[in-house]
Each structure stands twice: as C-alpha cells, then as structure tokens.
C-alpha cells in the first residue's frame, strides 16, 4: 500500500508555517520593550513605559504645548520619577494614582510619548477599561 501523503503534508506545512514565522520576526520583529520608570534611565530607542501617575498633570494634551505629568513605578519602593510629555486623547480613567502605559522615547531626560498612545489600566477589576486607537 502506498505510504500516506498525510505525514508529508503535515511536515511540509509545519515547515512552511515556521518559515513564515521566522521570516516575520527577522524582518519586522516588532516587539517593544516594556520598562518602568526606574529602568528607564539611559534607555534608547522606542519603548513602552509603564507606571503610576503621581501629582497633578499640567497643561492640555490637545494644545501645542501638550500635557505633562510624572510617573513612578507601579510596584516596589524605587524613588525614580519620570516626566512625560503627551499629546493626544486622554482616557477617562486617567488621574493621579492611575496605572498607565505609553509608548515613546526618552529625550533629554523627558519621556516624549507617541501621540495618542496613552492607555489606562483597570487595577484588579474584572474588565478592561481603556481607550486607545485601533
């Protein structure tokens, strides 16, 4: 009886899938590093910053000057604070003590966030509560 081609098909397909996958990660490789304020010092490149809002934000995110606020580590006792410069939509849950994520770059000691990348988290409650661009 002829050997079943099924095994061959499966093996080839698995190889094809892996090839697609490897190709993607090699060429596009869009993984972003997630950092907290204490780890941000000296970071270069495009990263995601995770932290808790401290103090009152100043300015208007929709104005040219933008909004500024400070972040500290979500957990742990680090005293590191980072100043964030933000333009774009601000989610409703944003306020002091909110946990947030932003993407952007560290420039001259200030974290300049990508426009509209501010996302707030819902700590320990069941539902996701955020607003972000698709």
């Amino acid at each position, binding site marked *: 009886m002829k050997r079943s081609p099924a095994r061959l098909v499966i093996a080839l397909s698995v190889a094809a899938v892996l090839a697609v996958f490897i190709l993607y990660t090699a060429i596009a490789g869009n993984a972003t590093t997630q950092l907290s304020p204490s780890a941000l010092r000296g970071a270069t490149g495009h990263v995601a910053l995770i932290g808790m809002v401290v103090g009152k934000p100043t300015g208007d995110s929709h104005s040219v000057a933008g909004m500024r606020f400070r972040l500290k580590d979500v957990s742990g006792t680090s005293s590191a604070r980072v100043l964030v410069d933000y333009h774009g939509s601000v989610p409703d849950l944003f306020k002091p003590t909110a946990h947030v994520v932003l993407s952007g770059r560290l420039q001259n000691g200030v974290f300049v966030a990508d426009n509209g990348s501010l996302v707030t988290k819902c*700590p*320990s*409650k069941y*539902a996701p509560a955020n607003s972000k661009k*698709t």
Partner: protein
Amino acid sequence: MAALGRVALLLSFGLVAYALVAGSFAAYTRRRRLALSAQNALLAAFGTTLVAAGVLLSALARHDFSFVYVAAHTSRSLPLGYTLSAFWGGQEGSLLLWLVILTGYAALAVWLNRRSRELIAWVVPVLGGVALFFAFMLCFVSSPFGKAVAPADGAGMVASLQNPYMLAHPPMLYLGYVGLTIPFAFAMGALLSGRTDERWIVATRRWTLAAWTFLGVGQLLGAHWAYVEIGWGGYYAWDPVENAALMPWLAATAFLHSVMIQEKRGMLKVWNMVLVALAFNLSILGTFLTRSGVVNSIHSFSQSPIGGWFLSFIVGCVVFSVVIIYLRLPLLRARTKLESLVSREATFLYNNLLLVALALTILWGVMYPLLTQAVTGETRSVSKPYYDFFLHSFGLPLLLLMGIGPLVAWRRASLRALGKTFIIPAVAAVVTGVALIAVGLGSSTPGLLAYTFSAFVFASIVLEFTRGTLATGSLWRLVGKNRRRYGGYVVHASVLLLAIGIAGSSAYQTIRERGLKVGQSMEVAGYTLTYRSLENTQHSNSQSTSATVDVTRGRTHVATLHPGKSFFPVEQDFGNDVSIYHDPRNLGDVFTIADQFDKNGTLFLKVLVKPLVNLVWAAGVLFVFGSLVALWPDAVEQRRLAQRYEGAAAART
C-alpha cells in the same frame, strides 16, 4: 448564611474528590456499584454547588455587605440586574460560576450517557478531577464567602461593566469554555477504557458544537461591549484577555472539522485526541489569563495568588493528556490513508493546520512577555502589527479554503472535476476584484483579497444550496436530510459576513479628530458633523455631560448624536458615552467620541467612519442560526446510532 455556602462548597469538594478517587478505582477494578456511586457523587456535586451559588445570589440581592464579595462589587444604588451580574464580576464568583456550569454539564452529560457504563466509568473521574481543582480553589484559596463588618455601602461596580452586554458576555463565554471539558473528558475516558470505537465522538458531537457556539457568541458580545462601552472606536485589540477566548475557539473549530473526517473515513484519530486536549487546555489557560493578571496588558498589573495554582493545574492537565495519548497510541492506529492531496479530507487537513498555526502564533504573542522576562530579564511585548500579519497570512487562506472545501469530493477529486466546479466561483471572485479596484478600493491589499475570496466563498455556498435543492427537489428536504452539512454552510456564510465586516471597518475606515466650538463643523468621509450644544443630565447613579452633534450627508440631515462622558459618584469612576449613527446605506457606522470638554467651551471630537461594520454583528445572528440548524436532532440518525450501539450489546451471547 455564608456558613451554608462554605459547607456546601466543602461538600462539593468532598464529592468530586470521591468521584475522582472512587471513580478511578471502580473503573480500574471494574466494580459496578462503586462506579455508580462515583457517578452519583458527581451528580450530587451539582446540587451542592448550586446551593452555594444560591447563597451568593441571595446575598447579592439582599445587599448583604457583611459578605466581603458583595461589598467589593456592588452598591445600594446599583440596579438589580447589574447587582446580580456581580456574581461573576470578581474572581471568586467567576470561579464559582465555572464550577456550577461544570458540575451542571457533567451531571447532564453523564446522565444522558449513563447506559454506556464502561465509557462513563472513566469519564466520571476525569470530570471529577477537573472539578476538584475549582472546588479546591473555592474552598481553600479564593472563597466567595469571606465575611467582615458590613460597611454602610458597597464599593459599587466599575462603570464600564454597567452595560447590558456585560450581563450576557461572561456567562456565554463560560458556557463555552466549560463546555469544552465534556468532549475532553469523553475522549480521555475512551482512551482510559481502551475503547477504539467512535462512541465518544458521537456522544459529544453536539456538546462540542454547542460549546463552540457559546464561545463564539460570547466573544462577539464582548467585542460589541468593547465597541459601544469602552468606545475607542474598535472592537478587538488583541489583548491577552481577548486572545484567551480566541485561542480555544480556533482549536475547537479545527476539532469540529477533523472529527468529521474521523467519522467518515476513520482517519486522524491521534490528531483528534491531540486537538480536543489542546482545545480544553487552551480554555483552562484562557480562564487563567483572564483571572490571574499574570500577563501585563490591558488587565491589571497586580499578580493574583491563584496564578501559581492555575499554572500547576494546566501543567498537570497537559502532562496527563500527553501521557494518556502516548500510552494508548497503538489503539489509535488508523486503517485508512489519505488517498490524495486533492480531496476534501486534504482540505480539512489544510484548514486544521492553518487554524492551529494561527492559535499557536497568538499563544506565542500572549506568552512572549512572560518568556522574555524569564529568559532575558527584560520584558518585551508584541502588538497589533504582529497579530495582523498572522491574521492575514493564515486567515486569508482559511477564508479561501472555506469556499474550496465544499467543492471538492471525498477521497480524491480529479482536476477536471475541480475545473468544472470552480469556474463559477472563480469568475465571481475575479469580477468582484476588478470591480472593487475600479471603484477605488484597491488601496488595501488584505482588504481586497478578503473581499475577493469572500466572493468566491459566497458563490460556492450559493452553488451548493442550488445544486442540492435541484437534486432533492426542495430546500427544506435538502437541509432536513443533511443538517450538519447545510447548517455548516450557513455558519460559513456567517464567517463570510464577519470577514467582510472586519475588512471594511479596518482596512477602509477613516478617522479624524478636531477641536470644535459651538456652531463649528468638521468633514469626515462625506459626512459633515456640527457641534450644536452642551447638556448636563442627572441619572439614578450617574451624572452625564453630553454634546449634541448634527450629522448630515450632503444636504440631508441623517442623525443627531450625543457623545459625552458620565461620572459615577459612588465608584468615583468615569464612563465614556460614545454615540453612533448606523448608516443603512453602507451598513457602516459613524462613531463619535467626545474626547474632552474644555473649560473654554471647546469640544474635542473624534470621529471614525467604519464601513460595513454592522456585518460583524449580523454575522453573529447568522452564526447562531447556522449552529442551531447543525445541532438540530435528526430522528433518523439517532435511531441508526442507537441501533449501532445497542445492537452491539444485544449481539453479545
């Protein structure tokens, strides 16, 4: 009354432990009465768990804030419906919901199949084992019956959960997740009892289909909730919590298809075992991801203590599945081989591989942050571009296969036959493609491909129904005699609608943001939106600020929208009130978000025009209809199957 709840849960724990231990012993040593006793224990566990659930529900309804759980998730001013839905709002309650549904399903499945004593003898301990984990968690790690001094009022419910979709979404999802345990238990039961026949598949066919439908509907409800309540303008964000439900659903889709091959051709027995175990384990993983906060993303940063327990349980289940399948490998030897790479069996195989590949790449994406953290100490994560790439790479071929599969014959199809059957759908696809490019929709390649493939699939489905009706004389008879196949085609059609809706609303959407003062307008994709006025309103448990915005298309006024924000004083929480115009002309939406109300009277308005998005929700309705058709009991088939399995027993001298 909390004491009653605790006792009831302890009883459940004892009962499922008994079902596991005594049940295994009874099955192994072939003791009939002990096996029956274990079966009774599993049935009784449903009763005791129901009592515990009743205690929690009544505490919620009575606003008994001495229950820590009730105080943490509800408040006096919360409407009754939402108060009751707080049952599954917190971790402890959702674990209890899992156990209620699991014991309920287990009781029903075991009861319906009680005559297959040998199979059930092993199914009972497997179900007992799974239930044992949840009962253990509820009794000793995460109890819903903690008591404290009652505060004057509860903490209330997060604003975004106070939405009708949140009443249905979690229970639906759970009915799906838990439902996948039943085919898993029967599969493992069949292996443990050393049986080689298809009885476990026949017994669980409808369970799998029902669970899969619930899981699919649950996800659509969740997506719709995110769309109208969270309101960022989208319905799926590739968040780990969302992916948690998608992965088992994809595995279950693969399983649903490949079981058909096993039934018809006796092939892929090992593959089916692997798939059902994969679907089950992914559903446990899904529950774990949603509840433990272990993966940092949308959900929470705080790590819950149940994470470690869940992980151990998952590892245990995976090891168990692998070991059992490995040990019983000789029993699963197939007699028939794949005859041709161009056959319906082969297309099902390709479909399976693509579905599993997609599920695994999503799994990789979800796990990536944890893996990088563990290996390099630095957390890296992937986002939308990663998922979109693989959705296109695997999803688009899957879409096309949906149209190819039905046109190909079983065993082997000659290329000539294929040529004949493919002509019409292929022409439909090409014509659609050309027409779309001519109209200017060639801007997005994935979008264009999605539409072209959809045309192919649509033509092939229409052809199937037409040819079938001509051959049998009436559509009713056609579907009546072959509910699974034609119900399946209706489900395929719903997936089509979903694909078209997704393509339209993502590849071809327009987004604009503008700051407007009263009287000013903005233009988006042919619509003009004018900011007219501002209102403040008081509701039973919230205050809202909203803008009145007029929408015109050309010269015609089509809608008045009220995007705004609400404030919930008890929870000290804000809610986003988006306002949407459903345009019947393009089945799309004009989605407005009041981003910000400035002190000087400027409204920052964000508008998204999303063509065809309402097809996504319409797909849900068609999906349920198709599943019902496929699920519908067939008297002729039931008789034949009963004969087959009773007949074998009767022939025993």
